[in-house]
């Protein structure tokens, strides 16, 4: 999806929230599938009154998006009529539809797990022949490839089945709070709505459980800070029946809870805990230390629940009339109703399913690499999914003809060229927006999913007050002020450098990062809002945090002293 001349008249903004780095060719499928599904939901399925879908364009690996607002009053009315028949049905039947959604997602995940491993034997296995299968292994390649893509596109449809409605109900309550209490912080509203048992807490809870198991089984001595995963595994295996018992507990946690990746699901190289155990396992020594120091690692769910109830009650009391209180009750009830989906869907979609998807593509990478298409299996991600299909067909054909595929002569040079391009693109800061800036941004999808308003655009585009060059602004995510050295983390490997008392500066955090919060004094992220993972976990740990700064990882030097003001959303370079 490249820009064409017609696009110059439209307003586009860089979706740095989901796509902070230049995309490689294959990963662009994440944009294609996501916008395809998002648009069907808003335009056709629920008929959002004032907006159609989102268009996207890619230039230099950067994803730009633009809304399609509906402005004709008659059309808005027509769409409103459709919307209410559809969306209100979902709100009224949320629990049962969501239960059905989970079943659909789990069966989709099962289908993906059961796809055959891609493999080309020299001869078709004898048992296939004797069974009269009548379809040769090269056909399996295209079959599995197409099913892999089909499942991925389907996953995104599921992803958006509830998302806009869920965010909409939350934002309804949010907007009410901002009107009734103009100075209420985003995080306070978030705290009133957030659940306590969401899936995003589970991976970290599993690590705490495993730390407890290690102590109970008396194998905690094996967990030494800095020890490699291989050494640890070897030592545990040699550690008698208790060592094996702990490893069995580990296996129980891994499926499904280690299926979280270190990103937000849009880049193939954001691997999961299951793919790289070093991340989760490195947190266990710290947890063991806490257990031995007599601290409880159990999240005080009941206490948190009671605090949330109290918070809701206290704000309710401040409202000016019973009528207003009744509206408040209606809105928060609706927000609580939709929230399990808003909090839970990512685990199933962006994490679990996405891991399966990219790992399946890796299998194709391995196979094509074996047949000389690539120097490294990972090169497969430098092809678009269309090109990859042609490469697969190329291999299928060559395998059947007994001749040589053409790919090995073609792809390595292209792969190299594209790798170089991405490296170059990454050096340049893309303009945050292109085209004429609209006066108002009233597209609920854009406001909801990206938090983009005319005010935030002004900040991005440098319109208005001259900002303090030593200040970086973001969303106030978790209250408190802290000063300390920044540890700028750009990859999982970097997290090994985190020292106690560091302030974590990262592009995005997700459930994978929760264990790191035991070490740090504060957190700053490029991406995320007040309901983002970093914000939620920081509040639980009582750590000051500013999220959604857009540029913290590029503007803060590693080791630099910074101050994080989590109540005001300001990071100051000292």
């Amino acid at each position, binding site marked *: 999806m490249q820009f064409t001349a017609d696009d110059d008249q439209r307003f586009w903004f860089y979706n740095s929230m989901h796509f902070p780095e230049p995309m490689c060719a294959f990963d662009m499928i994440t944009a294609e599938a996501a916008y395809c599904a998002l648009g069907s939901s808003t335009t056709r399925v629920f008929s959002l*009154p004032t907006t159609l879908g989102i268009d996207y364009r890619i230039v230099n690996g950067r994803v730009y998006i633009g809304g399609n607002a*509906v402005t004709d009053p008659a059309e808005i009315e027509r769409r409103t009529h459709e919307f209410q028949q559809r969306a209100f049905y979902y709100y009224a039947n949320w629990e049962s539809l969501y239960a059905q959604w989970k079943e659909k997602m789990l069966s989709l995940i099962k289908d993906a797990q059961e796809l055959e491993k891609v493999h080309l034997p020299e001869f078709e296995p004898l048992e296939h022949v004797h069974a009269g299968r009548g379809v040769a292994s090269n056909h399996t390649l295209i079959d599995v490839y197409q099913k892999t893509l089909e499942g991925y596109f389907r996953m995104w449809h599921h992803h958006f089945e509830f998302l806009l409605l869920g965010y909409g109900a939350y934002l*309804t309550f949010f907007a009410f709070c901002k009107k009734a209490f103009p100075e*209420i912080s985003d995080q306070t509203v978030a705290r009133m709505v957030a659940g306590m048992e969401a899936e995003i807490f589970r991976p970290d809870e599993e690590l705490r459980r495993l730390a407890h198991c290690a102590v109970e089984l008396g194998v905690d001595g094996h967990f030494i800070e800095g020890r490699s995963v291989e050494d640890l595994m070897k030592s545990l295996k040699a550690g008698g029946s208790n060592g094996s018992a702990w490893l069995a507990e580990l296996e129980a946690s891994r499926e499904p809870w280690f299926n979280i990746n270190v990103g937000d699901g849009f880049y193939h190289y954001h691997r999961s805990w299951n793919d790289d155990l070093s991340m989760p396992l490195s947190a266990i020594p710290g947890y063991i230390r806490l257990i031995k120091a007599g601290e409880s690692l159990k999240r005080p769910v009941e206490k948190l629940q009671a605090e949330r109830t109290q918070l809701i009650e206290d704000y309710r009391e*401040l409202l000016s009339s019973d009528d207003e209180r009744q509206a408040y009750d209606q809105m928060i009830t609706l927000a609580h109703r939709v929230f399990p989906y808003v909090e839970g869907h990512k685990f199933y979609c962006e994490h679990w399913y996405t891991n399966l998807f990219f790992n399946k593509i890796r299998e194709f990478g391995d196979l094509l690499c074996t047949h000389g298409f690539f120097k490294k299996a990972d090169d497969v991600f430098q092809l678009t999914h269309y090109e990859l299909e042609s490469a697969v067909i190329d291999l299928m054909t060559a395998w059947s003809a007994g001749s040589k595929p053409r790919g090995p002569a073609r792809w390595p040079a292209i792969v190299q060229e594209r790798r170089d391009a991405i490296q170059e693109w990454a050096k340049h800061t893309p303009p945050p927006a292109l085209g004429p800036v609209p006066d108002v941004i009233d597209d609920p999808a854009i406001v909801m999913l990206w938090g983009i308003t005319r005010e935030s655009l002004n900040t991005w585009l440098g319109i208005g007050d001259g900002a303090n060059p030593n200040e970086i602004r973001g969303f106030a995510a978790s209250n408190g002020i802290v000063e300390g050295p920044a540890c700028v983390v750009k990859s999982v490997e970097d997290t090994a450098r985190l020292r106690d008392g560091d302030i974590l500066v990262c592009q995005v955090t997700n459930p994978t990062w929760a264990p790191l919060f035991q070490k740090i004094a504060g957190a700053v992220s490029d991406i995320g809002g007040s309901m983002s993972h970093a914000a939620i976990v920081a509040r639980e740990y009582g750590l000051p945090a500013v999220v959604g700064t857009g540029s913290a990882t590029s503007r803060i030097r590693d080791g630099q002293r910074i101050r994080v003001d989590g109540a005001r959303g300001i990071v100051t370079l000292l």
Partner: protein
Amino acid sequence: MTDSKHISWFKDIGLADRPHVGGKGGSLGELQRAGIDVPPGFVVRTATFERFVEFLEQQAPVRAEVEPLESGDLISIGRVSARLRERFEQTRLPPDITAELIHAHEMLSGDTGAAVAVRSSATTEDAADASFAGLQDTFLWVTTADDVLKLIRRCWSSLYSVESISYRRKLSIPEEGVAMAVVVQRMVNARTAGVMFTRSPTTGDRSVITIEGAWGLGSAVVGGEVTPDRWVVGKITGEVSSRDVSDKATEHLPAAGGGVDHVPVPEERRRTACLSDEELQVLRSVARKVERHYGCAQDIEWAIDRDSNSLFLLQSRPETVWSSKDPAPAAKAVADPAMHVMSIFGGKR
């Protein structure tokens, strides 16, 4: 500490006594009843004022001098004001009142002869509907019984200041009902003092408390002589969403022979926050308690004692600016709760 018709101790009065003890006195009694720390004290009741006015009327007319004045005729008002104030301040109190006040002051001031504040407490002042706060006088750090007696009369006379008279004439308030009580209260030797509002003065938000404070006695803040430090604190969450530490050039401190000195703040303290985060939270919790007690937003004066670090409230009155213009509800209940989402999806924002 028995009551008489001339004075009432704080513990014995509340808001309902306002017609007799004035707004300030009633509010201080009410706060003490609600379990809030206020410096101990008593109120010289309006009946005492009235007895004194009658005493003066026997010599020459008082109220009849004021009644015919035009609110715009500042020259005549000025002449009458000067004459009446002179009489209030120069005439001695009847002996029985004098004896009673000296006794009460002794009990309040104790063996150490602790300093007191003498504060006017008008019956119209501090009421939510007719605030003319600040039109009457307050005298700080008074150390002798003689001065207390003199200053009570000075407070009374402030009811006949040019501003007060012309204000009353403008609103055609009949002179007959005009009376003033006077609060006599132990001074707090404040390290830090200031004011707070239990809603935002800028947005009217009821979920935040705005706290302003500066070094020394609160008179520097109330009188606008120093730009106070300013915090916005979440009423429920305790989050400090805004903190502005200002350059506090002066502070009011007790003078050696009574009264207040205006002293330059030493360089190292000028730009230092005058409250710690813990103190902000203590203020927040007291503010909530007071607001809950009254059932409406409050405008509060407070002080933190230099030696004990204890917090005292010096005054609390209903907030008047936002309460009088409360906007329409943020939303109203609807038959189908899902309809609320149209505020987001309907494009009517």
